[in-house]
């Protein structure tokens, strides 16, 4: 008993993980006794439920991540009009109690909205020479679910990054680089506002992976927040777009070296360069523990 307790109660403070995987039950890798999968979600009501959804239900679909091109699970709302991403927060040595039951896997899956323009930007970039309808843009044999994003986008939204021709019956779009960069810059500003008002620590201390830290937020300047926000936005961009945005924001490399661990952007990158996160979660269950525990860096470490 005592030996068992001490092992079970071991707590690792820097063991938090966040990944872009879909929920997976750690039991699955072991092919054990369990016949059920269970997950703890935190989600906006609009993502998982609605009073008037009728026949349709929210569904997870696989879409290439705009940064890596690797397929990940996203949640499409019942109406087909909103798309959400799933982030898994996992600390080592945690389990859940729910009423009189235990869930061994202590992961928390947080479902948050994702702007579909990020998801279609790679397709607009690919077809940037010609005007096309949205349906023509979002055709991808390898990732057929991308076509379902047509329901998530209004003309107004697409106009943020595209030129448009046609009338109400038939509209065709073409990427406008200048508009796209302007749109991205607004994203960075909005994110920087949010980060600064959330009291997220973005300067030197934030580079540390430990969680024991004083509450000093005084030494962060607007430049720090913008740089930090750029890292978060870049997480949804190809390296090409990321570079263009960085240049337009005037972010320089030398300004970023506040820590030997590297700038936020680098660590954000690690977050989604996750081979197994790109796979269908119904496969490869066994990889979860072995790889994700060691290889991943948490977005939440950066959010510190």
């Amino acid at each position, binding site marked *: 008993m005592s030996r068992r*307790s001490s092992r*079970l*109660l*071991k*707590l690792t403070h820097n063991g938090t993980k*966040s990944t872009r995987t*879909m*929920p997976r039950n750690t039991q699955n890798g072991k092919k054990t006794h369990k*016949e*059920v*999968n269970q*997950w*703890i*979600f*935190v*989600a906006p*009501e*609009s993502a*998982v*439920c609605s009073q008037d959804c009728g026949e349709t*239900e*929210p*569904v*997870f*679909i696989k879409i290439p991540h705009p940064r890596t091109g690797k397929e990940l699970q996203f*949640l499409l709302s019942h109406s087909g009009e909103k798309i959400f991403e799933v982030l898994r*927060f996992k*600390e080592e040595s*945690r*389990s*859940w*109690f*729910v*009423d*009189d*039951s*235990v869930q*061994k896997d*202590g992961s*928390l899956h*947080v479902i*948050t909205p*994702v*702007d579909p323009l990020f998801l279609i930007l790679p397709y607009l970039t690919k077809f940037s020479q010609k005007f096309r309808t949205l349906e023509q843009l979002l055709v991808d044999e390898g990732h057929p679910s991308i076509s379902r994003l047509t329901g998530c986008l209004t003309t107004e939204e697409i106009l943020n990054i595209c030129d448009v021709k046609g009338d109400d019956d038939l509209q065709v779009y073409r990427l406008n680089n200048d508009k796209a960069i302007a749109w991205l810059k607004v*994203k960075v500003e*909005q*994110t920087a*506002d*949010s980060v600064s*008002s*959330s009291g*997220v620590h973005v300067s030197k201390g934030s580079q540390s992976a430990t*969680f024991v830290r004083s509450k000093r937020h005084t030494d962060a300047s607007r430049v720090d927040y913008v740089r930090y926000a750029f890292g978060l*936005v870049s997480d949804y961009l190809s390296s090409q777009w990321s570079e263009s945005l960085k240049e337009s924001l005037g972010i320089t490399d030398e300004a970023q070296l506040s820590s030997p661990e590297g700038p936020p952007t680098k660590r954000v990158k690690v977050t989604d360069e996750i081979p197994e996160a790109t796979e269908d979660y*119904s*496969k490869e269950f066994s990889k979860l523990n072995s790889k994700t525990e060691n290889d991943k860096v948490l*977005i*939440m470490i950066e*959010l*510190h």
Partner: protein
Amino acid sequence: MASGSVSISQAAISSCPESNRVHLMACEIEHDGEAPVSSYFDKTVREDGTSSGVQDGEKALSASFRGRDLKGCVVNLPAGYTGYVMKEDKRPFTDEEDREMKATHKFSQFTYWNLETPPSNNDAITKAMQWINIASALHGGDVDNQNATPDNIR
């Protein structure tokens, strides 16, 4: 829809009960399934009388589990967000099978426990909650809206 999709049962979402006994424990328990949490754990939970360092208005909590002291606090989910315990009754045999998740419980807050150290804003769980606010700013729609500050997006 393509085969092998996972949907979320609407019937279960609307009918599942709300739980006010959801704990994120500070240890891994090698078990999935029923356990007498109310008799052995819930009974030990006490208010410390001081404020928690995580959310305003929440008291610091203490409890005991397997002889160890736990320090905890209630974490309220951000406005508009709900917690769900999702369950898949039947594990699929093939990748092609359609699957369905059913909510068994929902919750608007849970209790976050640490071993011995009281939870603080430096804990990972705080960052998960911060991410929700940041994501709404980063992914909030109408970027032309000059009034779209983090405050009113939230």
